[in-house]
């Protein structure tokens, strides 16, 4: 399977007829079992890109194509949102089985799937809690389990750890690296955090500021499993530095433009 992002462009038009170009000619692919990270300065259209791939937004031109996918009943994508987007009226367990429920699976099968992912993300004992009873880190675990439980061809993550405090965020990065190494899901991950991008990704796409264009695609050649030790490794730091070199000026210009 391969997901082809085929020359995507997106222009937003507001009511007064003024248009804003968010994305320009984005072209890349995501291969089977690949962890692709998109990194870019704020306002570069990262989230726009993810929403188009998720089918939650239409593109102005270009397409998203799932090639050679033995889709069957498997959904194309599932999204982990920055703000969790958990259903407040559903318990942890009921949130996680939402996708399987919508696919019409038997309750026993739903339960089996839920058990598996609850164990994977470390939510045992929290099955019957409501989202408002959980911390931010726990909520995002539920959201990750919910997306995984739907068994999508491509998992999409939109700055999933941005709403978390710095320490929780670091721990969740380790967790995600471990979970991904267990599942090897094709994954597209959006972030503005360069360390996070290098730590997690097989490939890192660098987007320019608005209109977002691909500045570079960097293959991250770091061994897995990746863990805490990585943050001191020379090659890791070199990758971070190289990407920062790309983004620095873009970020500065973006900052001044917004101000």
């Amino acid at each position, binding site marked *: 399977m391969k997901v082809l992002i085929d020359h995507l462009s997106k222009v937003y038009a507001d009511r007064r007829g003024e248009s804003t170009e968010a994305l320009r000619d984005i072209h890349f692919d995501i291969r089977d079992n690949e962890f692709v990270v998109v990194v870019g300065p704020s306002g570069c259209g990262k989230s726009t890109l993810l929403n188009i791939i*998720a089918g939650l937004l239409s593109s102005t031109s270009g397409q998203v194509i799932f090639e050679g996918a033995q889709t069957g009943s498997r959904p194309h994508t599932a*999204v982990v949102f920055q703000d969790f987007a958990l259903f*407040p009226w559903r318990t942890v367990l009921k949130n996680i089985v939402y*996708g399987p429920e919508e696919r019409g699976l038997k309750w026993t099968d739903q339960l089996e799937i839920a058990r598996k992912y609850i164990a994977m993300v470390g939510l045992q004992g929290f099955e019957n809690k409501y989202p408002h009873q959980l911390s931010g880190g726990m909520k995002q675990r539920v959201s990750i389990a919910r997306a995984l439980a739907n068994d999508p061809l491509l998992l999409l993550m939109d700055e999933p750890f941005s709403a978390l405090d710095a320490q929780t965020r670091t721990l969740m990065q380790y967790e995600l690296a471990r979970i991904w190494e267990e599942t090897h899901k094709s994954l597209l991950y959006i972030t503005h955090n360069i360390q996070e991008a290098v730590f997690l990704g097989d490939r890192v796409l660098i987007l320019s500021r608005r209109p977002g264009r691909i500045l570079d695609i960097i293959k991250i050649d770091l061994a897995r499993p990746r863990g805490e030790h990585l943050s001191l490794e020379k090659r890791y730091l070199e990758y971070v530095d190289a990407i920062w070199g790309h983004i620095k000026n873009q970020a500065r210009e973006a900052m001044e433009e917004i101000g």
Partner: protein
Amino acid sequence: MIGEVDRPMLEKAIVRDKTYFLQMKEHPWLSIASLMMILLLWEGVSAMGWVPHLFLPAPSSVLSEGWTMLKTGIIFKHIFSSLGRILWGFIIACSLGIFVGILIGFFSIPEAIGNPIIAATFPIPKIAILPLLILWLGIGEASKVAVIALGVFFPMVINVYTGVKNVDPLLIKAALSLGSNRARIIRKVIFPSILPMIFAGMKLGIGIALLLVVAAEMVAADAGIGFMILTAADLMQTKKLMVGLIVLSLLGIFFNWLFQKLERFFIPWKQ
């Protein structure tokens, strides 16, 4: 040193919490005491004979009248006929209000059609429509139920509509990304999202329903709290009239309590 001399005298200043008055204290005793005081004062005024009993009977005599009406069961006839009308009006109004509210909140064509109709009919005092309803539906139960239904429908439909408009779009996106279609979105995202608004509409509605049932029964009825109050007034049975008022107050308190319980039960995810 010169600098030392120029410096003003340092005083000790202790920082105080400026928000202390925002923390409202609870005074449970005061609430009960004030209620008791009013009743005592009233009883006293009656006992002194300052006001004729015909106009202001003593609370104790109102209570004993109420007790007699309870024992003979006559009061239940009135309570249950009023409650029956409220119940039917309420059920019709709530189901219709929720249905229409979701329809005009979620779909653009019903919204374009429904909004001006609601905006035009909402301001009419519902009691003013009662004569028309009697003309159409007759003097029996149907017109009374209809006027209650009409009165409760509007706060319900407006609440539900507002609720649908304020559903978190992120939750809809999440449901879509997990494979929901539009019908499922309504059932599994919109409906639970607007449940608090539905309960708010029901709480508003019950006040209106009590008002309208009494008004409708005063126009034409042979039983009900409104009928009881009006006939008592005609016959100068002030005690009986006041029993009617107490029953209405108790009904209001009861419904508020009931909806609060129901809300807790149906919306367990709210703290």
